[in-house]
Every structure is written in structure tokens, then in C-alpha cells.
């Protein structure tokens, strides 16, 4: 890389310019939305739409979202519930199943693994799944967003492969010391598996944060709607249920900045977390190998 010929320099220059363009393409939509979330009705009327840079900073949109409406805080609560409780249950079910299926001598291990694997390549489809949730009485409960997706077969198999890669001597030594199976799981296997458990847990958590379709079909009651559904509603119509008071305001914020502000508040938590956890995600993809 020390002595580059002229052609090489041009080649590299072109690549840097292209990558800069691509990076801007990733960021620009977010910048537009962030800027627009700060514009006032007067500025919106003058400029006619979404903007790249705001002329003034106006917090009316955020004020409405957080102070004048209980919808957003409530939706944050619903989303937080499904992320925290959902992910914990995901992990409890996934870890136990993966641990058992990782026991090389367990009678019935292969049929049980096939039992799970079949669900990865064939499914009953949307309608039977919807009817099942309906008949089980889960509709219009928070559990309809958690229980139907307790175990992701693919993540479970990734975790099982990891457990199988742990040296057997560790468990054997624990057995010699008189440890029973539950003790081995809690004291030997889990502490060694924290990275993979964290990775899979983050996969589950991001899914719960971003999921909306299950809420859209299973939940009708507005107080049980997660943030993503509220955002979808605001993108479709200019007003929000429970925000009727906006129409009584002297200077209501433009729909564009209200939408933008909601995009920002429903994205910011993920934006702040993912750069710090991405190395785990990347590792998780690698554990899955080409098969991902």
C-alpha cells in the first residue's frame, strides 16, 4: 500500500467516492426525518414539505408526542414489555431446548431435532396460525405478541451447535464431582455460553422491538398497540387516536414533523444500542455460517 501507481490511486479514489456516496445514501433519509421533526408549521407552510436542514428548531412535535398525548408513552410501555418479557421467555425456552438437544447420548435426540427442523421448511401458513391464536383466546392480549414466537428454530439450532462444541470433559468433570444435570447447566454450561446467549437474545430483542404485523392482526384495542403500530397509523393518516386535541391547538405542528418525530423516537433506542452490540451480531451470523 506504500507505493501506489497512478492507476491504483485513481482506482482507490473511485472506490472511496463510491463508498462515500453509499454511506450518504444510508444516512440521508434519517437526516431528513430528523430535520423535519424540528420544523414549525410556519416553516413547513413556507417550504412545502420535508427538509434536509431546518431553519429553526421547534420542539412542538416532540411536545405533543410526549406531553400532550398518552398514546406514545403507553405504546412505549407495550413495546418495552414485549421486548423485555418476550426476550427473556425466548431465551428460557431456546436455551433449555438447545441444551437438551445438545446431549449427544440422549435417546430420541435425532427424532426430536427432526421434529423441530420440519417446522423450518414447512408451515401451515398465515390463516391457520391466526385462527389458532384466536381459538386459544390470545387475541387482544399482550401474550399474542410473545407466545406464538417463543422459539426460533434457527436460533435454537445455532445455540445447540454452540453447546455441542463445548468440550465434553467439562461436563464429565462436573459429574465426577457429583454435580447433577441442572447444576451442570447452570454452573458450567451457561457461564461459558454468555456470548452466544447475548447474541441470540439481541436478535430476539430487535425482532420484538421492530415487530408490528402480529400486533396488527391480533390486537384491536388501542391501549395494547406497540410503538410500530402507532407509527404505521400516523403514516397512514395525519392524526393519531387520542390526539384529537391537536386540532384545537392554535398552531398545530405539520403532519410531516409529527411523523418524523415519531420515527425518531421509535428508532433512537435501536440506533444508540446497535453500534455497541454489532460485534455480537456479526459473531452470531458467523456461528450460523453460510447457512444463515
Amino acid at each position, binding site marked *: 500500500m506504500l507505493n501506489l501507481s497512478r492507476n*491504483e490511486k485513481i*482506482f*482507490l479514489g473511485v472506490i472511496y467516492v*463510491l*463508498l462515500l456516496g*453509499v*454511506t450518504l445514501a*444510508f444516512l440521508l433519509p434519517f437526516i*431528513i*426525518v430528523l430535520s*423535519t421533526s424540528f420544523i414549525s408549521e410556519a416553516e413547513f407552510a413556507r417550504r412545502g*414539505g*420535508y427538509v*434536509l436542514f431546518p431553519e429553526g428548531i421547534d420542539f412542538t412535535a416532540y411536545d405533543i408526542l410526549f406531553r400532550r398525548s398518552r398514546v406514545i408513552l403507553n405504546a412505549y410501555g407495550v413495546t418495552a414489555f414485549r421486548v423485555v418479557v418476550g426476550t427473556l421467555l425466548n431465551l428460557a425456552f*431456546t436455551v*433449555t*431446548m438447545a441444551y*437438551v*438437544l445438545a*446431549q449427544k447420548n440422549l*435417546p430420541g435426540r435425532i427424532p*426430536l431435532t427432526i421434529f*423441530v427442523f420440519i*417446522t423450518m*421448511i*414447512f408451515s*401451515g*401458513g*398465515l*390463516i*391457520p396460525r*391466526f*385462527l*389458532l391464536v384466536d381459538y386459544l383466546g390470545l387475541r387482544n392480549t399482550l401474550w399474542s405478541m410473545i*407466545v*406464538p414466537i*417463543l*422459539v426460533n*428454530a434457527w436460533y*435454537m439450532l445455532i445455540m445447540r451447535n454452540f453447546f455441542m462444541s463445548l468440550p465434553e470433559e467439562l461436563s464429565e468433570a462436573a459429574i465426577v464431582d457429583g454435580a447433577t*444435570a441442572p447444576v451442570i*447447566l447452570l454452573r458450567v454450561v451457561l457461564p461459558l455460553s454468555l456470548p452466544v446467549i447475548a447474541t441470540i437474545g439481541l436478535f430476539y430483542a430487535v425482532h420484538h422491538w*421492530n415487530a408490528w*404485523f402480529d400486533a396488527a*392482526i391480533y390486537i384491536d384495542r388501542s391501549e395494547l398497540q406497540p410503538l410500530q403500530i402507532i*407509527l*404505521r397509523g400516523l*403514516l397512514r393518516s395525519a392524526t393519531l387516536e387520542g390526539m384529537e386535541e391537536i386540532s384545537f391547538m392554535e398552531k398545530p405542528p405539520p403532519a*410531516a414533523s409529527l411523523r418524523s418525530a415519531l*420515527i425518531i423516537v*421509535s*428508532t433512537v433506542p*435501536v*440506533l444508540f444500542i*446497535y453500534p455497541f452490540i*454489532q460485534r455480537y*451480531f456479526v459473531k452470531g451470523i*458467523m456461528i450460523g455460517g*453460510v447457512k*444463515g
Partner: protein
Amino acid sequence: MSRSSRTLPLQRPGESRWSHAHKQFIKWRFYYLLITPALLYFLIFHYAPMAGILIAFKDISPFGGLQGVIDGPWVGFKHFTRFFNSFFFWNVMRNTLEISVLKIIFGFPAPIIFALMLNEVTRTVAKRVVQTISYLPHFISWVVVTGLITALLASNSGLLTGLLNSLTGESWSFLTNPDHFRGILVSSHVWKTVGWSSIIYLAAIAGIDPHLYEAAAIDGASRLQMARHITLPGISFVIVILFIFEVGHILEAGFEQILLLYSPAVYGVSDILDTYVYREGLIRLQYSFAAAVGLFKAIVSLILIIGANSLARRLGQPGIW
């Protein structure tokens, strides 16, 4: 030695099969207990819906509850025949396949090119920053992406539409225009997936023997030549395998994305199998008919994925099973 004693090596001579199985069960009882909740989950939420596809061969009332499903009369392949003979079949199949193929044409090479370009960046910090930013779209929901697309392309207030309107003096509309809608689907798909998908290629590139580059440098190869003759062949096996599985998933044209973005004005170019099942089933409450369409898709998908896997195996790759 009997056959059973070979498969169950701990069985003692003279011990009956059942008492052996019983002992095995006692020995492993903790593990069976531990896996029972997860097995019940799969039984209820995956196998029960599989049994539920039987409603595709019945006429069930949307308001009859479970009893309505049991009481519904058997109608054989009526719903399948209706689907295959309807105008919607060809429209939906064509849209599904065309959108999928477009996404493969543009979305499949994009992460490979992106990884090859990143590989040329020797400044680690710059490389890491670009990579991190490129993963960003992967972590946000399709709902948020829809909001971002609105910000750019909404017919009155979108930034790009506004710009085009003032430049051309015409009134542009993208999201409701059948000529542009698929372009939006494909480009937002590429935007959302290119960074994250490049990870696997970057890892494959990292696994290439560095001596190959040193040898090529001594022979006077340029960087472009190295990328072309060392890097690309070095990751070709990953490319081939991922491509096969991409084709195996060709009936997945992007359900959430399309459901959020489309409108009746563009149904003609964007209604895919999944959105059709959703509308017929959950909006128009034709459960049996929609289940039949869903079953058709599930069976074709199964055949495709088995085909993809055996093809991958024939090429000497492990496949997914």
C-alpha cells in the same frame, strides 16, 4: 448380538426392551422434563397450524369458532380450482416471481460489490465507520423504512418529489404510480439489506490466504486484477450457495414491505401471494380459500427449498441439512 443391543449399547443381556427404555428414561428424566415446554410450543404453534391446513379442503364459517371448523363441510379441491382458474392466480404469481427476480438481480450482487469495495479500504477506522453505518438499515423496522420513503417520495411533501416538481413543473407521484412502484420496492430492499448481507462475504474474504496476494503483488498484479482473480474466485463458493438458497426462497417477495407500501392503485404490479392471502383471509374473511392459497405456496416453497438443498449438496456443500 441383537440389532437392538447395537443401537442401545447400555442394554444388558437378558434385560427386556421395556425395562431398558424405562431405565433410560429415568436416567434422562431431567432432560426430558426440561425440553417438554419447548416441545409443547412447537406442537401447538407449529404442528397444530399444519393440521389446520385441512380447512383448505373445507368450507368454514368465519364466525363459527372452532366448532365451525369441525362442522364445516368437506369440499375437496374446490378452493384450489377456484384459485387456479381465477384471474388473480396469474397476476399474483407473475408479481411474486417478477418482484423476486428483480430483487435478486439487483439485491444479490450488491453486497458482493459492496464487500469487494470495502476490502480495498485500507484505513481501518474509515472501513469500520462505513460498515457500521451500512448495518443501520438492517436494525430498523419496515414501518420506519416506510416512513423514510414517505419523507422522500410522498406525493406533495416528499423531499425528492418536491424537488422534481419544482424542476419539471409537473406533479410527480411515485408510490401510487404502477410504473415506479416496483423500483421503490427493489431499491428500498437493496438499501435495507446490502450492508448486513455483505458480512458473510467480508468474512469469506478474510479467510483467503494472504500469500496469494503477496505472490500476485510480486508478479505485478494491480489491485483490480487481484480483486478479479484472487478475491472473487476465493469467495465464489459462498456466492454460489447463497444464490441457490436465494432462488429457493423465490416465493418470498417481501410481505411486510409490500403490505406497508402498496395501495389499490398499484395492486396490479405489487399484489403477491402473501398479500393476496392476507387480504382474502383476514380482510375478506374467506378463511378456507385463503388457507388453500397459503397451502399452495407452502408446498411449492417446500419443493424449492429441498431442491436448493440437494443442489447445494451436489456441489459439495453441506447444505442446510
